[in-house]
């Protein structure tokens, strides 16, 4: 039910707040009613056909840096 992996927004119908995401190469119909100002190219988390959150790239980078730091110290 939950696509835990972030997907990229590839189509938006502003009027109906729907569109499509690319989930591992597959186009999936998605509802954007739960997020304001979704743009093409945004990375989102989709659950049961609804985008529920936008991925924050800076925060993602910080977490990755932290992981890398732990790996390097070991």
């Amino acid at each position, binding site marked *: 039910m939950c696509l835990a992996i972030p997907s990229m927004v590839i189509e938006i119908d502003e009027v109906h707040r729907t569109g499509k995401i690319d989930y591992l190469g597959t186009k999936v119909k998605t509802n954007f009613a739960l997020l304001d100002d979704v743009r093409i190219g945004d990375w989102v988390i989709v659950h*049961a056909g609804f985008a529920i*959150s936008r991925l924050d*790239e800076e925060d993602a980078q910080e977490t990755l840096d932290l*992981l890398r730091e732990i790996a390097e110290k070991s």
Partner: protein
Amino acid sequence: MARTNEFRDKKVIGALLARIAENKRSLPSPCRIMEVCGTHTMTVHRYGLQSMLEKAGIEMVSGPGCPVCITPGEVHEAAIRLVTENENVILATFGDMTRVPTHLGSLQNAVPAKGSAVKIVYSPEESLDLARQKSNKEIVFFGVGFETTIPSIAVMAKAAAGEELSNYSILSALWLIPPPLRAILESGEVKLSGFLYPGHVSAIIGQEPYTFVAREFGFPGVIAGFEPGDILLGIISILDQIREGRPRVANEYTRVVRPEGNPVAQALMREVLEPKDACWRGLGVIPGSGLKFKAEYSAYDTEVKHDLRITARGIDLPGCRCGEVLRGILLPSRCPLFGKKCTPESPCGPCMVSFEGACLVHYKYRGPKS
């Protein structure tokens, strides 16, 4: 930006586990962490983290985080009755829901009345599309879920009301995650060292609803994502909180979870739904743990529209011990039916049906004798 591989990198996982083992050594044993969310349970077992963590002195137990599982049998039975006793009803629901065994069999094996059918949908929206297309049928969406799913169901009710669809209603089983955590802590049945809070529920509700866990019970907790690296980072945070004697709601999933959650989704939930006391399988009635439609939306509430009187008791079928599994007091493999009478092909309870169910996850990744 997906770059999920880096969260699964073997070197990173090894280093995180070494850090966990080191941090654990200075703490009094045992350390038992409840993963509240079924999707966490999946990651823990799929990547073999369970046994690696055991070696480091950390025991992971599953909690009530499977909505299909905690929905009492009586609600599933009400859905079965709807399609078997009424003509021209299409009951739309998520795939897992059709296979849950009850006293009346399952939705999958039910024999629908004339013109009625059970239809599997992937998104609540598909059920609304059905109502738009098939005006001669009564469409019931059997919607079950936690805060992750609830906002989408609120959107459906609002859309149906906006379009004045008269052939659509929602049989809802909507569950809130924080109240059962309180119930688990108050019962004291399972000795825990901390909670791994569900990432995507938290994307909706934010951090605040969990603060009582640290404030009132002095328990550590962390919001974690669903990659192995996320979960291990979360466990390091719990160990830090124990060591520092500073329990709090940490957030290791900042790339998806904002402290305040998703305000648009929260506003929609508040507009359409209101809290109710709800009965959970295994846990019984928990105050304020469910949501129901507000009076303005009662035309779209299947329970009102079809005058269903559901008295939920939340008791398992004879022999099944899902209730105990959901409370974290029984390992799936300790259920006498596990892997013998109860298998994914012929499940005896919902925990062997749902892909988030602890019994199915154990069976799938650890084998029938796990």
